[in-house]
């Protein structure tokens, strides 16, 4: 245990706030140029694709997909920075409805179409609806992504009420991971798989952890390489 004086504590807190606000401004100011890159590349595609040869169209797709990646990184960082600053609200949240709505949005907007998704009855909690929506978004898209190369991707969401808390599980039959790296999973910018096969920003699970912590909860994962993964989070049943 390191002893920190009140002055030092205040300084650390101020630094943290400043860092988060820089993170927010940078990611915010990056949005406009990324919107322009994506927008104008799409405009080029719409109006002039017929005049491009196959290689030209391929190059355009590279621009679009890389810009899309920057976009996702920005969105994740905005949420990450906001997580430390924004006051949280605490309202009753219907977790089953929220998970269902997030899952159907994801599968509609380009998730694996042939995936089998089952969502059990999930007990509700008190929490911040927008943050919990983001949490489900990260976990479900993660599961869909890593199961996407299976013949039949399966996603299973269930929960169990325990004393004073509810534990939620998101299970997939995807590629899983080596538990030796489990401690890295929830760190910012940590990736366990290569980007070409499983694109990601390395911010999603860090956000999941922050959201759970801000609700007074915990996160963990269990997996075996090649045999799917289960991501779990526990939230206190009493409002935090």
């Amino acid at each position, binding site marked *: 245990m390191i002893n920190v004086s009140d002055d030092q504590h205040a300084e650390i807190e101020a630094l943290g706030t400043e860092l988060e606000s820089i993170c927010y401004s940078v990611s915010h100011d990056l949005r406009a140029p*990324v*919107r322009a890159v994506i*927008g104008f590349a799409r*405009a080029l595609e719409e109006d002039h694709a017929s005049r491009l040869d196959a290689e030209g169209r391929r190059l355009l797709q590279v621009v679009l997909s890389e810009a899309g990646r920057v976009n996702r990184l920005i*969105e994740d960082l905005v949420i990450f920075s906001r997580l430390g600053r924004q006051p949280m609200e605490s309202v009753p949240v219907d977790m089953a409805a929220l998970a269902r709505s997030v899952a159907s949005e994801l599968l509609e907007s380009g998730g694996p179409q042939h995936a089998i998704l089952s969502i059990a009855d999930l007990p509700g909690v008190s929490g911040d609806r927008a943050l919990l929506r983001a949490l489900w978004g990260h976990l479900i898209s993660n599961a869909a992504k890593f199961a996407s190369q299976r013949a039949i991707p399966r996603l299973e969401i269930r929960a169990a009420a325990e004393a004073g808390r509810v534990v939620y599980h998101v299970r997939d039959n995807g590629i899983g991971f080596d538990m030796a790296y489990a401690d890295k999973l929830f760190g910012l910018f940590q990736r366990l798989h290569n980007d070409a096969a499983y694109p990601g920003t390395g911010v999603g699970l860090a956000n999941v952890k922050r959201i759970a912590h801000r609700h007074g909860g915990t996160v963990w994962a269990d997996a075996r390489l090649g045999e799917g993964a289960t991501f779990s989070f526990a939230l206190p049943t009493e409002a935090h």
Partner: protein
Amino acid sequence: MDELSGIEVLLVEDNDHDAELTMRAFKKCNLLYKLYWVKDGAEALDFIAGSGAFEARDSRELPRLILLDLKMPRLNGVDVLRSLKADERTHAIPIVVMTSSSEPRDLDECYNLGVNGYVAKPIEYTSLTEAVARIGMFWLLVNRVP
């Protein structure tokens, strides 16, 4: 000045590329309303009042919709919103804020000032086009004002 008469949509946006994409979206979904683009809040108020560079404009003509960016040089979007909503002559013009900011603070401030809609500009082109189309359809085709 024909270019300045009969304007139905006023786009207030300091970013050239965002403005171009918004106007492109209007055309793409066949919202062929007469749109005029000004680059900051001061220009927007001059346009409405028929003052400054817009002295020749007939200020009795008001746009049916204002699309308003927030972060702009000189006079920002919040100032424009405050000024137009406080003025009896202009307070009924539907104003939809279109911004990169999804900060709760900005949202609160705009709603307190009486904004009619608030849209966080999507980065994705198709979502942006769709958002602009929906805004246009609703405020120009469906909505009625006094």
